[in-house]
């Protein structure tokens, strides 16, 4: 049993290495993914070991990265594309939503696009403009794509391998502010035995209210639950993990037990995932609810200058305030 303590970044790197080893059709492509190993070093050492035909430094053009990956996928490859930062994915947006998402449908199933689009996303690292965004709702709104995000090293390691092995085109969001967080990773666990890619998971059981989070906000939700426990309130924390399609069965089950729900995400609240989740919970769990589903989100502004991002990002206090409000009804 080779359980090691790894950062999220190293777990992703190790998972990608496994994916390259296990299938010769897997290729990694993106800007600076080769010699540099990516600006976050997620592909560190992979080109050295697998060569520049498997780990491809591309020209500096995001639509080109995704569009050529589509062609490689049609040819039978399994491309794993790295978009360097969240805010740079938009030039590739047309290829992702009009081509990647729809070619299987358009061809009535005759063409498969088994590709992964890795995007370091979210704020909290003091970056400049375009380096801190949460574009998940844009992709979750597009049928044909699947959108997932990991929140801890074990999931990072397993989920990236599951995503590469999947026949679905997957937008794989990596919470960049968590790249350096450490945790145990079972390197030998078979992929088939890993927790399902498209399933939410209760990461802290509780009885009094449900806090739904994903990606970078899972840590915030867990910290809030720890703090709430000191006040005698047991919060259940659910890591959504899959953003499209949503795994709402696990969510309904939790909310029916606790009667209260707070959804937390960094993206702006307006038409964000929290809106959809709140609506769905209201439709399905209306008679179980003690209070409306509340959202704690980024504000409806462009991502602000980094000196004020701590105020923009949902934190432990805002989550606890929302939980308090659900007890006020």
């Amino acid at each position, binding site marked *: 049993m080779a359980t090691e303590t790894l950062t999220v970044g190293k777990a992703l790197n190790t998972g990608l290495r496994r994916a390259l080893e296990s299938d010769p059709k897997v290729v990694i492509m993106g800007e600076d993914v080769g010699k540099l190993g990516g600006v976050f070093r997620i592909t560190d050492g992979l080109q050295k070991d697998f060569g520049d035909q498997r780990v491809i430094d591309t020209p500096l*053009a995001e639509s*080109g990265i995704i569009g*050529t990956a589509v062609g*490689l996928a*049609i040819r039978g490859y399994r491309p794993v594309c790295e978009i360097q930062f969240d805010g740079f994915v938009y030039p590739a947006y*047309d*290829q992702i939503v009009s081509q990647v998402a729809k070619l299987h449908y358009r*061809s*009535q*199933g005759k063409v498969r696009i088994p590709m992964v689009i890795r995007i370091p996303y979210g704020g909290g690292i003091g970056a400049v403009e375009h380096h801190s965004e949460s574009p998940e709702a844009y992709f979750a709104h597009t049928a044909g794509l699947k959108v997932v995000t990991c929140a801890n090293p074990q999931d990072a390691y397993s989920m990236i391998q599951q995503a590469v092995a999947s026949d679905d085109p997957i937008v794989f969001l990596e919470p960049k502010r968590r790249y350096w967080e450490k945790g145990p990773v079972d390197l030998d666990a078979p992929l088939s035995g890993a927790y399902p890619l498209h399933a939410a998971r209760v990461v802290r059981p509780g009885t009094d209210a449900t806090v739904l989070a994903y990606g970078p906000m899972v840590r915030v939700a867990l910290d809030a639950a720890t703090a709430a426990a000191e006040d005698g309130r047991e919060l259940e924390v659910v890591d959504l993990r899959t953003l499209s399609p949503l795994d709402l069965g696990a969510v309904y089950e939790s909310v029916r037990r606790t009667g209260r729900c707070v959804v937390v995400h960094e993206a702006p609240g307006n038409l964000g995932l929290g809106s959809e989740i709140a609506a769905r919970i209201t439709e399905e769990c209306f008679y179980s609810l003690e209070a409306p589903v509340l959202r704690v989100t980024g504000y409806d502004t462009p991502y602000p200058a980094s000196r004020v991002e701590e105020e923009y990002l949902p934190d432990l206090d805002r989550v606890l305030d929302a939980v308090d409000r659900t007890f006020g009804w």
Partner: protein
Amino acid sequence: MAKGDPGVTARGKRAPSRSKRPAAGQPSSEPVQLLTPEGDRVDSVVGQDGVEYRVDFTDAEYRSLYRDLVLVRKLDAEATALQRQGELGLWASLLGQEAAQVGSGRALRSQDMAFPTYREHGVLYCRGIDPIMPLGLFRGVDQGGWDPNEFKFNMYTIVIGAQTLHATGYAMGVTMDGKTGSEDGEAVIAYFGDGATSQGDVNEAFVWAGVFNAPLVFFCQNNQYAISEPLERQTRIPLYQRAAGFGFPGVRVDGNDVLASYAVTRHALDNARLGQGPALIEAYTYRMGAHTTSDDPTRYRIASEVEAWQAKDPIARMRAFLTRQQLADDAFFAEVDEQARREAVHLRERVLEMPNPEPVSMFDHVYPHGSAELDTQREGLSRYLESFEGSVH
């Protein structure tokens, strides 16, 4: 289909146009032309890329190319008529571009892969695909029904230029598979129009194809208009000259000349399959009809311009050539016309019989392995439709 496919199966000799000879003279600024509008054969001509082009078809192959041109035009006309009668929601006619499509389409070998836009009905025909296939898309009963892997002809792409990147990636895969570097290697062709050259994706595809030396032929059908916008709104230099800036050869061919279109495409494909990288072909032609059946070209172009291009008609010149060289007689032309008429009638009959899809089929193939959420929605729609009295669903 694929009767007398010149240069692919029917002929016993290699591609006719390859020539390693240095250019005999200055490359012409005129498009490569091997058949004049009057139907005179040009023995050979040096293109802007410095290559001397010539073709050498058998009599049967010349007749076969003529037959393709006529059939493709007739089927296209039938589709336009079907749209006018309300049987198709839209049609993007290829009228005027038959030679560019048949010439390039016949230059492809069976192992080559094509990435079309939505107007490549002639190339589709050359790939051996049932010509009814694109009509499903325009009738609204499917999104194009052929198997891209079987026919080596991808789905129509409606977003302008997007497919050039797909072609580039596919061509990179050909190289990675070690399928270049020999005369029986694979090559890829990407079709697009003059308007597409303004798109970022096309320029990114040029960059990618160049730096990865992709076995790819960019085949631009410059039909002079992007809906209503003339070429001058897309470029201030001849489009084939763009290639130089990306590091590969570019050549302009008379797109109304099926022989020249064949020659330059075959040459570029052969180079690509040998591992010599990409090329840009600008097939200089003219869209005689509307962009699609939804627009009115009389609002943006003048009759004299259309008449000038009518004089360059690809079928008329081929017919003049066949007649003058006594390669075909009136009986042959009548027989071709009759075959085209029959195929058009057959096409019409089948279009009228195309059934609407089952409503719940909209949920098929969103994901390769399905989705619980979509299963729920499918069941919901089924129940809703069944709730209507006398429902046939």
